[in-house]
C-alpha cells in the first residue's frame, strides 16, 4: 500500500524533545504559571496581576482556552463529546495560536509584560496524559515564544484534588478525563488523570527550567516569594508607568 514510505524511527519517542524557540526578538517579557488543577496557580497569578495593575505597570493577562474565535467549536466538541486526544489537542492549539498571534506576540513586540494562566506546558502535560505523542505535541506548539519565567505550582495530589472536589459539585467530562475510560467514577477518574498530569509536569521541571513553587504554603507568603522572584529576574522598571518630566 501507500504512495509514500514513512520513516519510522525506532525509539524516536524516547529522545529529548525539541526545545521551544530560544531566540528573543522583542522587548516585552512573558511570565506564565503552570500546575495541576487545585495547585493554587490561578490565585497566585491573580494576586501578582493585581499588584502590577495597582502599580500601573504595562501588563496583559491571558488565559488558556479563551479565544473567542475558537470558542464555539470547543464548546460543541465538549458538549457532544466529539473530541479525541488528537482533536482535543489541535483545537486547544488553534485557540493558543489565535491568542499568540493576536495578543501575546504583538504585545511582547510592543513591550508589554504578558502574564499567562497556563501555557503550552499544560498541553504537554495533559495531552500526553491522554495518549498524544510528546514529540508531536512539542512540534505542534513550536511557534510559541519561550517564557522568561515559568512558575510551576506544585501541591501533593490529595491536597489539589480535595481543593477541586470540595468546591465543585460535579466535575466535567473532559476535565475528569472520562474520555480515557480509566474509571466510570468521575472522582476516581479525575484523580488518576491528575496524577498522570502531575507526573508529566514533574518531568519538565529541569528540561523547561520551571521555578518550583510550593502550593501548600500560605497564600500571602507564597505571593511574597513570587513577587520577589519576579523582581529579581525581570527588570520591572521597563514596564513601569512613564513619569512626566
Amino acid at each position, binding site marked *: *500500500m*501507500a*504512495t*509514500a*514510505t*514513512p*520513516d*519510522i*524511527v525506532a525509539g*524516536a*519517542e524516547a*529522545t529529548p524533545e*525539541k526545545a521551544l524557540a530560544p531566540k528573543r526578538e522583542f522587548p516585552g517579557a512573558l511570565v506564565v504559571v503552570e500546575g495541576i488543577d487545585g495547585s493554587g496557580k490561578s490565585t497566585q497569578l491573580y494576586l501578582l496581576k493585581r499588584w502590577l495593575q495597582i502599580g500601573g505597570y504595562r501588563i496583559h493577562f491571558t488565559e488558556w482556552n479563551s*479565544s473567542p*474565535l*475558537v470558542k*464555539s*467549536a470547543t464548546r*460543541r*466538541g465538549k458538549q457532544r463529546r*466529539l*473530541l*479525541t*486526544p*488528537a*482533536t482535543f489537542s*489541535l*483545537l486547544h*492549539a*488553534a485557540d493558543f*495560536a*489565535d491568542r*499568540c*498571534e*493576536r495578543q501575546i506576540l504583538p504585545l511582547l513586540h510592543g513591550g508589554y509584560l504578558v502574564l499567562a494562566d497556563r501555557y503550552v506546558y499544560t498541553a504537554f502535560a495533559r495531552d500526553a496524559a*491522554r*495518549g*498524544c*505523542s510528546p*514529540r*508531536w505535541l512539542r*512540534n*505542534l506548539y*513550536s*511557534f510559541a515564544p519561550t517564557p522568561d519565567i515559568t512558575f510551576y505550582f506544585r501541591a501533593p495530589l490529595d491536597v489539589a484534588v480535595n481543593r477541586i472536589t470540595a468546591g465543585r459539585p460535579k466535575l466535567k467530562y473532559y476535565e475528569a478525563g472520562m474520555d480515557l475510560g480509566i474509571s466510570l467514577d468521575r472522582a476516581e477518574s479525575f484523580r488518576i488523570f491528575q496524577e498522570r498530569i502531575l507526573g508529566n509536569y514533574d518531568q519538565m521541571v529541569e528540561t523547561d527550567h520551571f521555578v518550583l513553587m510550593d502550593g501548600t504554603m500560605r497564600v500571602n507568603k507564597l505571593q511574597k516569594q513570587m513577587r520577589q522572584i519576579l523582581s529579581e529576574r525581570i527588570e520591572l522598571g521597563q514596564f513601569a508607568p512613564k513619569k512626566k518630566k
Partner: protein
Amino acid sequence: MKRSAKNAAIAAPENGSATKRAKGSKNGHGDLASRFYGIPLPGVNIEDLSGNLIVIEGSDGSGRSTQISLITEWLESEGFAVQTMGLRRSFLVGEDIDGLLAENAVTRMTLALMYGTDFYDQLERRILPALRSGLIVLADRYIFTLIARSAVRGISRDYLHGVYEMALVPDLTFWLNVRPEVAFDREFKKANTISYWESGRDMSLSNDLFQSFVRYQSMIKREFEYLSKRHGFIELDGEGSVSEVNRVLRKRIASHLGIRGTRYSPSHALAHLWR
C-alpha cells in the same frame, strides 16, 4: 531547519516504490507500520483497516470534483462502496472554519490548526471507520493542500509535516496539474468572479485579482512540485479532457484494486460532466 531522524517529520518516500510494493501484497497494503507517516494515531489498530484510501489533489479549477463524482459512480457500478472526504466537511469544526474565512480576523497559524482539527476529525470519525468496513475512501484533497497553503504563507514545511505525522498514508495520490491561467478561466466561469482565498488576497500579492490569483496559485503549484517528489504523487494533466483524465484514473485505480475491466460511460445523471 535541520532535519534529523529525531524529529523526522513526514518522511520522503522513494519515488515510484509505492506501486511496486502495493502489487506484492494481498490487499495492496504494505507492511502495517507504514500506514501512518510518523506516529500512529492513539487507539487505532492498523490491522483492522481493510479499505483503501485514494486521494485526488489539485487546485481549484483542476477538475477534481468532477472526477470524484465520476470515479464514485464507476466504483459503485463495480460493486465497491465509497466514502468521500474533503476540506471543511467535519462535523466538529467545518462550519467554524467557514465562519473564520468569512471574517478577516483569523491569522495564518490559527487557520492552519483549525484545518488540522477539521482533518483529524474526519480522519478519526469518517475515514477510519470507513476503512475498517472495507470501503474505498475518495479524498477530495488531503493534507497536501493544507501543507501547501500554509507553507506559502511562511509556516515551516517541517512544522506542517509534523502536524500531519498521524495522518494515514494514502494508497494512491493523484495530482491534477493545471496552469494557474487555465484554472482562472475555469473558476471565473463558475461564479463570474474569483474568491478572496482562492486568489490569496490575504497575502497582498496584487490588487489585480487575475494577477493575485496567478501568483498565488503558482506558489501553491511550486509547493506541489516539491510535495509530489517527496510523496510520490501520480501526476496527471488536468488540462486534458474529462474523459481522458478519467480513463487514466480508472486504469491506475483498477490495477490497484484488482478490477479487471475499466470500461465506463457515465450515467444520464452525470453525462453533462463528460465533455
